[in-house]
């Protein structure tokens, strides 16, 4: 039982960034813009979130307050960075994959440059701990409390709130309806007076917001509030893309996909706790590959029938018939 608690407690802080970023990708792609830049957006958000933490960590603010403020900083930075994507992809009608790739290349280099210039370092190292031993009230609920609200981060709770918000926005609001229309049939949306450009900017900006927060939550829950230009977010942005595809561009499925990956990843590092696996004596490396291999296996089975938003990747041109 301890092991199960342990696995869940360790899985969630990993699953949440994946979930948020994949949700971000979903908003962007369902509005019609392929967002390969998620990796870069995450890193950008993580960097500014961490920079904020670094600047205020010695103040008297409590860690959870700092975390919330840092989240806002990360969200805003994510949005700003994502505007570079929307500008190129929506306004300038540039190739979305190329733009995304360039944005992914830009940010690690910029972090290295900046950090070396100002900190003589490869990134930002903070010293604030955001770990929560036990959340008040919630942590006392039997079983559930120990699984979800002990030995964890506030990010888990916030992440789940974001999921709920995303589902509601996506399916229950007029904004969501319009956004989805733009990713499927922008001409149709245009013909009923929806501004496709604005909706795509909105979709990409939401991915910036969620990507930035996801990046910061990755930094908090996985990297202890640190960020550097070398490891970046370790391919989490790309994994999130895979999660999004696996989740068929739908929020609840994305949640399960994110949990699935996070579980494998946690398992990979916890082999020695699980006697059955430990006894197999398989090289650690294979476990490290597991999330990536699992992605491939899953995609191999789901891709045939996977259905991407119809208009994604195609710049919308009003004058094109």
């Amino acid at each position, binding site marked *: 039982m301890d092991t199960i608690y342990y696995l869940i407690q360790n899985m969630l802080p990993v699953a949440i960034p994946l979930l948020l970023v994949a949700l971000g990708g979903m908003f962007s792609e369902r509005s019609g813009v392929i967002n390969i830049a998620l990796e870069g957006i995450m890193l950008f958000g993580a960097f500014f979130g961490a920079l904020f933490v670094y600047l205020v960590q010695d103040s008297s603010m409590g860690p959870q307050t700092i975390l919330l403020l840092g989240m806002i900083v990360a969200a805003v930075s994510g949005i700003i960075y994502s505007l570079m994507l929307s500008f190129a992809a929506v306004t300038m009608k540039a190739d979305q994959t190329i733009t995304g790739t360039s944005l992914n290349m830009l940010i690690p280099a910029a972090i290295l440059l900046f950090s070396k210039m100002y900190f003589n370092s490869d990134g930002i190292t903070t010293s604030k701990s955001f770990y929560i031993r036990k959340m008040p009230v919630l942590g006392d609920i039997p079983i559930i409390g120990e699984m979800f609200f002990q030995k964890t981060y506030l990010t888990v709770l916030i992440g789940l709130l974001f999921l709920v918000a995303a589902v509601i926005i996506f399916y229950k609001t007029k904004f969501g309806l319009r956004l989805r229309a733009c990713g499927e049939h922008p001409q*149709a949306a245009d*013909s009923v007076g929806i501004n496709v450009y604005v909706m795509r900017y909105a979709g990409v900006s939401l991915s910036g917001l969620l990507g930035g927060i996801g990046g910061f939550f990755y930094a908090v829950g996985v990297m202890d509030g640190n960020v550097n230009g070398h490891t970046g977010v370790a391919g989490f942005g790309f994994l999130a893309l895979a999660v999004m595809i696996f989740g068929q561009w739908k929020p609840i499925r994305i949640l399960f996909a994110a949990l699935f990956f996070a579980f494998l990843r946690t398992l990979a590092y916890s082999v020695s706790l699980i006697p059955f696996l430990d006894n197999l004596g398989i090289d650690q490396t294979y476990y490290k590959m597991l999330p990536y291999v699992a992605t491939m296996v899953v995609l191999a089975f789901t891709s045939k029938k996977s259905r991407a938003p119809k208009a994604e990747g195609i710049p919308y041109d*009003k004058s094109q018939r």
Partner: protein
Amino acid sequence: MENYIIEMLNITKEFPGIKANDNITLNLKKGEVHALLGENGAGKSTLMSVLFGLYQPEKGEIRKNGEVVKVNNPNDANALGIGMVHQHFKLVEIFTVLENIILGVEPNKMGFLQKQEAREKVVELSERYGLKINPDAVIEDISVGMQQRVEILKMLYRDNEILIFDEPTAVLTPQEITELLKIMREFANEGKSILFITHKLNEIMEAADRCTVLRKGKYIGTVNVKESNKEELSKMMVGRDVNFKVDKEDAKPKDVVLSVKNMTVPSKHHKNNAVKNVSLDVRAGEIVCLAGIEGNGQSEFVYALTGLEKMIGGSITLSGKDITNASVRERSVAGLSHIPEDRHKHGLVLEYSLEQNMVLQRYWQPEFQKNGFIKFDAVREYSEKLIDQYDVRSGQGPITTVRSMSGGNQQKAIISREIDKDHDLLIAVQPTRGLDVGAIEYIHKQLVARRDAGKGVLLVSLELDEVMNVSDRILVMYEGEIVGELDPKKSTVQELGLYMSGAKRNTKKEIDNAG
């Protein structure tokens, strides 16, 4: 001055290199059905898009009830009570009917959708006008006719009083057309004003009060339909007398070239099969036409025939050779030429030059390559020959990028390529779609010439006139099955329509006897 609800005065709209609308004036009375007639590219859709706010004209003004209004986008149009059913439906396929109807004018409380409210209104409207729909059906699952009803409901839902129909009948069966025209009249009687675009003179005669004719972007005139006739209208439209009949002699069918037995093809869109157990023969020296309303399996049938899609049952024999499992290339070599339905999707590599496209089916033949290296001179020579022979016009001849060519000439390029290639059977799928009268005439001649040269021709068309005029034998496809065989000389368009809509069908035996 009469009391017009809408006046479009001196509208000029240019696209790069082309004046789509040149000083056009159009007046719409309240409560009338006003037809807009013109050849392909005459500027009808453009004019309507200007009215609907999709395009901004360079010159001219729009008035509503005598007051100048600005229509900068569809929202403005909507506010002015103008609604439009587009030539190509603008529906989001994965949305439900209801979602499509409310899109853009969603009833909401603080941004949250209030679908129940919308549903009530939609159901009420659909009952009132007899536009049967299921609000929860997903668009991709419903028929084209039903989709059009959704488009119409979209306008009604917005309480529009000026309704624009851009070629609404192109995709409908004669029966559905009659139904639609009735509904349009009903709208007019209710006081709504209708703008109705069509190429079909019959429809205008039947339903319209007045008709405005455009030609090559210019305004030709407006007539009262009751005081005019088909001949006058068509003359206004093309500027000369039109010969609607294709000159050809009777067919002299010889051996069977193509024999399809029990073909079954699965659908990509729904669970049913798109083509169900279809058998047919095409003989040398005849034009067989596969008629039917779009979406009844003709496309899938052709794709399976040419090897672009997989079939799950049946067999195909071409000139005595079994090609059931052959690849696209093998079928082509065995004597199949294919003028595809969608020239931009399948027929051409738009970024390639004309000459590169001319050898799209043949680049691998020894004539054009040696050890894998392309013989550029041979390609040039060959394409020049085709260009010359088939009068394919383009800016720079063989090196023109095909994307820059007009649709008609793109089509000519494909036809020349497919005809010139050694073949026993020519499959032509909607070869005249979107082309003007001149080009259509030319293509019909070519098809007949192929027939007369002793080739089999399988024509797939949605245009009833084309079907009746060009073919020697008509097979009607409905919901993936061949439901009737007709002799064009002995049947009427009405009869054909009944088959197409599934209202009438031959028994299997009758078909066998006829064939």
